[in-house]
């Protein structure tokens, strides 16, 4: 892997990790809210 490819590799991996982190955080919040709503039923 050339230095340029390595930079690109790290950039892509970082972006993917950020997106996965955001999605997981979103699901944590969503499941928290669903639980609160369901407990009120």
């Amino acid at each position, binding site marked *: 892997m050339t230095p340029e490819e390595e930079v690109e*590799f790290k950039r892509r991996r970082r972006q993917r990790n950020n997106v996965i982190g955001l999605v997981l955080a979103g699901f944590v919040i969503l499941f928290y809210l669903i639980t609160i*709503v369901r407990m009120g039923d």
Partner: protein
Amino acid sequence: MASTPLPAEWRDFFALTKPRVMSLVVFTGLAGLLAAPGTIHPVLGFTAVLCIAMGAGGAAALNQWWEADIDAKMKRTAGRPLPQGRLRRQDARDFGMLLAGASVFVMLVAIHWLAAVVLAFSIFYYAVIYTMWLKPRTPQNIVIGGGAGAFPPLIGWIAVTGEITAMPLLLFAIIFIWTPPHFWALALFVKTDYAEAGIPMMPVVAGEKSTRRQVLAYAVLLFAISLLPWVIGGTGMIYGIAALVLSALFVALSVPVGLRMAQPEDRMQPEKRLFGYSVIYLFALFTALVADRMVLS
């Protein structure tokens, strides 16, 4: 197909979900949810629509995983992530399975078992019955594929009511019958390379004349089906009048398409007009349905 040592970008995974198609799925799913009698907590309503969108995205990813070789042969689809080699094929399959499985699971635990069952069936219908089995085998593939696009309002409705009644089945039928004239109008003026890719599309298999007649026949059928929710008393005047006017215009625009034949150097204006209107038609009809429910309640 080229392979790359670089990890795929998140945008390529997002592209697998066919975001433009998903906007229509979200809209019709939300319309079914809002038009259903009863109420649902906004958080649960959001979750239901999210599950519908995730299920549609998962099915779209599985569709592209299965059709990667076909997509590579056609100009319209050759730029997708898999034919371009920006994504590994098994990653697309795993992503599709994950989205599909997660959507059904969340629908099951958070909303309603029946909504989860219908969502699971809609994904199976699109990814297996349509994509793998019938699309490469019959020129009726668009008619069958229309069924997949027709599920969202049905699922949205069930998420609220927990049951399948005549009204959500009619919403299903409206999109089911709307799809063939919508797509074939496009197929008449866009020269596609389905034939080279081995997909038996109606204009290629049955010819232009037969396709045009069928566009008109489906438009007339759509006129009748779209009025049924009003006729059976499932909606009020707002929807009834909107359906009458919108569907009459749909038939009026289908008549020139159904009765003429393309000439050399034809600009295909009637076909383009019908296709453009068909998109507005569906949005307007479902908006009228929701408006009708809001006024009634």
